[in-house]
């Protein structure tokens, strides 16, 4: 099976020269979801923006990004615009800023349809209602006439998903789509996304800092630390036998319904700020398994779908 989105050795430097994304490779397949996970500040959003070609002006991107074989990094701006309105869609991290507060939800979705699909206003409005209803909004006709602030957080997130689906994309990138939501609503939104993946063969790149979200909604996972993907593979394998100490530490740090009475295995320290990143393995200062060689270089172990970057992996 060939990948819908194939990212290879993607590097991105911000205008000041700081490298936020460093040699990142991953693939998203049609009908599958890849979770990109890591603590905040690891570069997840930057990686997604690099794929969408939405990093700020002056940022430098290298490597290769292919959507159904077509190279995105070299494509002319006009072509990228076209793809963003037809094959490629992104739900941004800040739900509050993603919807325009002075336009009704329906008219915002319809706007995209008149621009990208050249629908007449009335047809676009009708299609907007259909889209809202397809993401599980009851009373879509009424809700289409509502302003964003009149909707609950979960409803706004559904509206954003509807807007992202307006162009019937093949790939959807969702950046922390449930982070601001309550657990019961979170579960509903994740079911909606996994349903879309199954029923429409959508490829989903789901960005989150929450391993629980990955376990509920993803087939594959890529764990990002300080700009690099330190481990990746099928969720079931990576979560049951993590090899990179960072993955293992994230998995162990979470409180659960069963963890009462035991201290959590806290991961000490924090993600290094941009510009103070080390040679060798960047996780080394926080790692209890570090060896001398970790200060020198990082190894690339495994190939294809199951890979990690560690000299002294967990379970050895």
């Amino acid at each position, binding site marked *: 099976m060939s990948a819908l989105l194939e990212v290879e050795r993607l590097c991105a430097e911000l205008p000041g020269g700081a490298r936020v994304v460093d040699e990142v490779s991953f693939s998203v397949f049609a009908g599958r979801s890849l979770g990109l996970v890591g603590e905040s500040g690891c570069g997840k959003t930057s990686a997604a923006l690099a794929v969408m070609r939405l990093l700020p002006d002056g940022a430098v991107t290298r490597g290769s990004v292919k959507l159904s074989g077509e190279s995105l990094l070299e494509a002319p701006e006009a072509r990228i615009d076209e793809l963003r309105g037809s094959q490629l869609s992104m739900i941004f991290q800040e739900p509050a800023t993603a919807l325009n507060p002075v336009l009704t939800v329906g008219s915002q979705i319809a706007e995209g349809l008149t621009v990208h699909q050249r629908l007449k206003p009335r047809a676009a409005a009708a299609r907007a209602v259909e889209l809202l209803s397809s993401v599980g909004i009851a009373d879509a006709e009424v809700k289409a006439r509502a302003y964003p602030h009149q909707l609950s957080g979960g409803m706004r997130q559904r509206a954003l998903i509807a807007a992202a689906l307006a162009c019937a994309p093949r790939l959807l990138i969702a950046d922390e789509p449930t982070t601001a939501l309550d657990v019961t609503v979170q579960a509903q939104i994740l079911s909606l996304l996994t349903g879309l993946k199954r029923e429409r063969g959508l490829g989903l790149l789901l960005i989150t800092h929450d391993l629980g979200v990955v376990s509920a909604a993803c087939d594959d996972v890529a764990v990002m630390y300080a700009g690099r993907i330190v481990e990746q593979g099928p969720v079931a394998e990576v979560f049951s036998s993590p090899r990179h100490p960072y993955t293992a530490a994230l998995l162990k740090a*979470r409180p*659960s319904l069963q963890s009462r009475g035991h201290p959590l295995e806290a991961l000490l320290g924090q993600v290094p700020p941009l510009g103070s990143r080390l040679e060798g393995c960047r996780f080394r200062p926080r790692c209890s398994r570090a060896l001398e060689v970790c200060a020198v270089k990082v190894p690339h172990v495994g190939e294809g779908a199951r890979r990690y970057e560690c000299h002294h992996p967990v379970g050895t």
Partner: protein
Amino acid sequence: MSAPLLSVSGLHVHYGAIHAVRGVSFELGRSETLGLVGESGCGKTSLARALVKLTRPSSGTVRFDGPPRKLQLVFQDPHAALDPRMTVRAALAEPLDIAGLPHARMPELLEAVGLGPELLPRLPRELSAGQRQRINIARALSVEPTLLVLDEPVSALDVSVQAQVLNLLSELQQRRGLTYLLISHDLAVVSHLATRIAVMREGELVELGPAEQVIVTPQHPYTRALLEAAARLAL
């Protein structure tokens, strides 16, 4: 049995037409942790603020066994809770001054929350999210409280830092015999520390019982819905 440290009876909070807290009653015993869980907007923060008298209840009573300053609230938003122009030193001086306690305690307070005195001259923006939350906790501890109301103390933190802060809360409780009302929308967080769990929905407590019992044999359908959602997001 000794008298409860806190007893709350028939508490109501209104904001104009909004009825945020609807007849809440519970008691807190010494050195226990009551976890309060519920989804956003259900009235948790309103209840917390009414307990520390930052919001005036429309009816009901809050009885706290001790002087008011021994009951401290750690605010929900660690960013908003610290004044951006105040150094750590100034942020700690404020409650110490109010309580008439010496500034000489600052290093010891920082140590209690796992930080060093080198942070004293820093501004909030020069601290990590976890350090800011530790400073918030240090501020609350400065007046030697017996009861801490912790409003979403780890919600804004990454899982790694969340674990550090939860461990810190548990150590502090053991060392100082503190009583906690731990508020969170996250059932896993609440059940990690709580001895008893209260479930809040639309301003009311719909279930209250020993943590084990609430998790294993929930009585209210809403508690079951929360547990199911939490289980889906478990690893």
